[in-house]
């Protein structure tokens, strides 16, 4: 790609490597901000989507890997690497003024690895308690329970606390901010609250019913999956992905399998590819049905929720028969799938497709056309395309704002390249667009399944793998289109049977940041509804 080469010519101080469609730039930490701003602000190709920031502990140094994408050329990924030798007090420039999504990613890296970002106005820990000792993803972390016993007292959260910051850069001076001003009426939604879709803690400053400011708190279901992966062999760590975004678990697991298969250079049999695609699409339908129902319930229509669950049960039946598990399919394995499909699988899926189409009409009748529901959704929660890209709001949320970001189209994996389907795009960016796009995607998923279900080729359902899987040394990325957006996997292997570092890019995390951006100025009732329309899953954020 010529434009990209021209762009890289602007960065003489960076070392560049290319592997397939991934360009890797390595810069010193002093040059990081300059490089990042050139990449974002140049006129050739603007890398306007910061997909993820991966914190690394290389043993002797701490590093950061920025994954950048361009909305104009989505197929190309650029990774920007930097590292610091300092372990006691590592400092790296913040890129928060370039990308909105950097906010939470930087806080995450700070939480896990103790890297401080100069210029970020909020350097609290993201997942762990503020009084937590140590940085868990460092290799020398002491995980013994004596260091961090189970706390019996709630974390003291002061409403008017001043946010901790690291500000050493004289060029980009920032003032310490107060989280909430004195006199603001701060209401806690969560951690235990019926409408936060898990244990999310939102602190909301209200003026009457109008929302002035939102401060999301995470970590109430942080289970340390990334650290656990480092102690598990590759087949063992597969099951953890199902439990992150549990409503579209098979898709996550597919993503991790893809990354490992890339490392092993394993050819997955065609039959397995077909089965994987069908199961993925089924779970996407199930997830959207649940999302639809939950959004309706957030708006007070419990009947719609029950209808969604009723249809979801049909999918659960199909998945249970073939995979053995209802919610946790545990179906994808390295090189294929766990077991062959059930003899009734094709028949049941074929019965399900017309049933679901009929029920979709009922769902539209019950909720989409309801004047109250339309009145609630219209004109609320506008998210512009630029903002969506900057916030990294992938998936249906981004597509509702007109951002072409479907990984199934950009980087077709499994058999998505062979089927005809449309990427649902809407231009409105309103709550109603986010709502309707999910129902449209159900329709499109049914269309995909319809094309595949009769054409599953004969053959093996899984490739033969060695008893002990050792991924060759290197770094492997994969990304799949989860029901909520882009689910990315990064594996750093040192040729061992355990990975050196695993990082998952959660689509839900940026969605909560999106909520923070779009809910200001709306009413309390809208906050809950907007949360429903973004459809985030909290355990996926916390990992």
């Amino acid at each position, binding site marked *: 790609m010529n434009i990209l080469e021209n762009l890289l010519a602007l960065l003489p101080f960076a070392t560049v490597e290319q592997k397939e469609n991934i360009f890797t730039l390595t810069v010193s930490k002093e040059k990081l901000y300059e490089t990042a701003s050139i990449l974002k602000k140049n006129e050739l190709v603007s890398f306007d989507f910061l997909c993820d920031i991966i914190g690394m502990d290389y043993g002797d140094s701490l590093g950061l890997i920025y994954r950048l994408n361009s909305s104009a050329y989505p197929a190309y990924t650029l990774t920007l690497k930097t590292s610091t030798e300092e372990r006691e007090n590592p400092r790296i420039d913040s890129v928060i003024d370039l990308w909105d999504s950097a906010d939470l990613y930087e806080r995450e890296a700070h939480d896990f690895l103790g890297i401080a970002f100069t210029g970020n106005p909020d350097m609290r820990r993201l997942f762990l308690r503020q009084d937590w000792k140590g940085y868990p993803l460092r290799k020398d972390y002491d995980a013994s329970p004596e260091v961090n016993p189970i706390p019996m007292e709630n974390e003291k959260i002061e409403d008017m606390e001043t946010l901790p910051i690291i500000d050493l850069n004289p060029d980009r001076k920032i003032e310490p901010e107060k989280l909430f001003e004195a006199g603001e009426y701060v209401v806690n939604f969560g951690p235990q609250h*019926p409408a936060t879709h898990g244990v999310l803690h939102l602190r909301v400053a209200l003026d009457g*019913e109008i929302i002035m400011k939102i401060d999301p708190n995470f970590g109430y279901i942080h289970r340390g999956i990334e650290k656990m992966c480092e102690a598990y062999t590759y087949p063992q760590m597969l099951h953890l992905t199902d439990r992150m975004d549990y409503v579209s678990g098979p898709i996550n697991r597919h993503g991790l399998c893809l990354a490992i298969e890339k490392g092993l250079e394993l050819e997955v049999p065609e039959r397995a590819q077909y089965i994987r695609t069908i199961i993925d699409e089924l779970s996407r339908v199930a997830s959207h049905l649940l999302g639809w129902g939950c959004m309706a319930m957030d708006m007070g*229509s419990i009947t719609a929720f*029950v209808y969604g669950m009723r249809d979801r049960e049909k999918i659960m039946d199909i998945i249970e028969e073939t995979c053995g598990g209802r919610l946790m399919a545990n179906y994808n394995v390295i090189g294929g799938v766990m077991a062959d499909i059930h003899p009734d699988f094709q028949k049941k899926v074929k019965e399900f497709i017309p049933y679901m189409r009929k029920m979709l009409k009922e769902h539209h009748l019950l909720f989409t056309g309801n004047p109250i*529901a339309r009145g*609630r959704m219209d004109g609320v929660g506008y998210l512009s395309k630029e903002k969506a890209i900057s916030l990294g709001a992938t998936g249906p949320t981004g597509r509702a704002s007109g951002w072409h970001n479907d990984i199934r189209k950009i980087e077709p994996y499994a058999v998505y390249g062979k089927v005809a389907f449309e990427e649902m795009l809407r231009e409105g960016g309103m709550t109603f667009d986010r709502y309707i796009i999910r129902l449209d995607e159900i329709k499109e998923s049914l269309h995909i399944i319809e094309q595949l279900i009769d054409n599953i080729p004969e053959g093996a359902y899984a490739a033969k793998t060695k008893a002990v899987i050792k991924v060759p040394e290197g770094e492997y990325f994969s990304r799949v289109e989860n029901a909520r957006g882009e689910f990315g996997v990064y594996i750093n292997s040192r040729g061992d049977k355990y990975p050196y570092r695993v990082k998952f890019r959660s689509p839900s995390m940026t969605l909560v940041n999106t909520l923070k951006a779009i809910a200001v100025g709306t*009413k309390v009732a809208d906050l809950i509804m907007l949360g429903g329309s973004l459809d985030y899953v909290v355990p996926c954020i916390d990992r």
Partner: protein
Amino acid sequence: MFQFSVVTQWIDEFLRSYLSEGWTLLVEFVLIALLVLTAYAVLALLLIYIERKVCAFFQCRIGPNRVGPFGILQSVADMVKILLKEIIRINKVDSFLFTLACFLVIIASLCTFGALPFDGGLHVIDFNIGVFYLLAVSSLGVVGILLAGWSSNNKYTMIGAMRSGAQLISYELSCGLSLLSIVILSGTMQLSQIVEQQSDLWFIFKGHVPAFIAFVIYLIAGHAETNRGPFDLPEAESELTAGYHTEYSGIQFGFFYLAEYLNMFIIAAIAATMFLGGWMPFHVPGWESFNGIMDYIPPVIWFFGKTFFCVFLALWVRWAFPRLRIDQLLALEWKILLPIGLINIILMTLLVIL
């Protein structure tokens, strides 16, 4: 047609033949209070059961069916449980107001309940300003809700109570206006006379279009007054956990719970009395034999039949619609229902004059 006043008069005479004036009254008061309280509790439990069954029906479920035949004792079990549940004393609440609030709510609904004409003569008190009394007493409940929200010292309850205050005071207007149009039509505020006047034809038919409009407005506004979906903002479950009664436990919560269901019944009963003829059977002028057959059905059954029809409408709406937002809720009242209600009164006046 059987009139219940025969029975009450007989009891009265029976008591008077043995007791002096004062004692008779006392015994009668106690009897009435016991009857009203029992009817109140039984009706509330029945309504809870009905709501759970109807809700299950709308949601393709079965609903309670294990406790007693068809699960009919389910709400009795709930009551036994809730009576023996711990009442938590919470620090930092205004304990006097906190305790008072739940009583206020239930007293308001009890007072309204007592004034309903269930049958000819089955009527605790027959005021000549019956309609006025109903409106006045039923709106007392909002004081209880406001106090509950305020005294709980909790932000959810506070928001819930404020929402409730705004909502009830607004919708009270539409309620009053729609009932007023019937008062204009009948020329009296006495409930027994209103029912008597519907002996030839119910007001909803007699009053032509204005009465029908008033009926619809009353159903919407009355439904909003009961704090039930789509107007359940004060206790919006997904927003405010449990709204104004978040901090209440045990029987104190039970009071709110019972009052909520009974208010639904009361609104339906007032709608039935004012528009659908109360306990008066369905009569069509001129169809003498038809009217005669209708008279064989006891008035109590007519009353409850009509009331439960209105209750069913309320449940249907409750389980089919999503919740309104506070600004939409107020806009619905002040921009739509209130102007229509005012115009409707003019229409009704013209109808009566002409």
